[in-house]
């Protein structure tokens, strides 16, 4: 058998040097694919987690309370000589911020727990008053507007 083996050994084929390069390149590509796979899995996981968290938080968000604003005096469409009262009761008791706009400009800003007892100096004959109330604890807001006349 010795000679037979020798005969076959003579016709053995050796790989070209570029095989080393090809194999190394292939393994580098494989490693890259593995890392890319891990990265995309992490990305998908993080995205899913973020989305789930967002949905969870939005579903569990407290429903803002209904704010009731009552005017102590009916101020709407009333005529006042120079000064119009602003007496408003806000329910339920909470911490509110409010803004009073007179003819589009901010006239007054403040905070209240329920009552607003104020007055507005009016110079124009026709005045548009707008009241914005925001509940700082429970969320929610309310807006009220009316005309007062100065004659």
């Amino acid at each position, binding site marked *: *058998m010795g*000679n*037979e*083996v020798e*005969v*076959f*050994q*003579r*016709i*053995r*084929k*050796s*790989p*070209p040097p*570029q*095989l*080393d390069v*090809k*194999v190394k390149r*292939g*393994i580098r590509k*494989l490693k890259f694919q593995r890392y890319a796979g891990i990265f995309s899995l992490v990305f998908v996981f993080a995205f899913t987690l973020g989305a789930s968290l967002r949905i969870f938080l939005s579903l569990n968000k407290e429903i803002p309370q209904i704010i009731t604003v009552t005017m102590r005096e009916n101020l709407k469409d009333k005529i006042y000589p120079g000064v119009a009262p602003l007496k408003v009761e806000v329910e339920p008791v909470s911490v509110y911020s409010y803004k009073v706009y007179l003819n589009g400009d901010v006239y007054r800003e403040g905070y209240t727990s329920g009552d607003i007892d104020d007055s507005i100096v009016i110079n124009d004959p026709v005045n548009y008053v707008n009241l914005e109330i925001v509940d700082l604890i429970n969320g929610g807001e309310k807006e009220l507007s009316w005309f007062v006349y100065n004659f």
Partner: protein
Amino acid sequence: MAIRFDDVYNEYKEMVFNYVFWRINDYDEAVDLTQEIFIKIYKNLGKFKGESSMKTWVMSIAINHLNDFFRKKKKFNPVYFEENSREDDCDDPGPIEEMDLEDTIKVERALQKLKDWEREILTLYYMEGFQYEEISKLLNIPLGTVKSRLNSAKKSLKKVLTGGVTHGK
């Protein structure tokens, strides 16, 4: 101790390439297939448990990869060894050195004219030095079939070298 891929590659690249070349008879394609086989070895190196020798394990991956390759290409049209020809084939055709082996090119050409399974068994036995038992496991055939296939392949080679009828691929 962890097995380093570089060590496996350096030790068996010649064996794998030679086997692949003699099965497909195409140098460039043999390079590509050898690369694919070593990528597969790299991927599966952690699964090697040492139940067989590293040489047998590497060769089994090469054989499976080539069988898949032929299956995919629908090239694989093996002429299966006929059991009824075993007795005849078991007659030793005589040592190969008695054949006209002086001309290496002639031997190469003769080998190329053999059937796929004939080239395969000659390559495994004579070029890569696998024993009958190892070939039997690698090709998943009985030991007797290994011996008769080897005799049959030698007979075919002798026939081609002496100008007899050739099988073609």
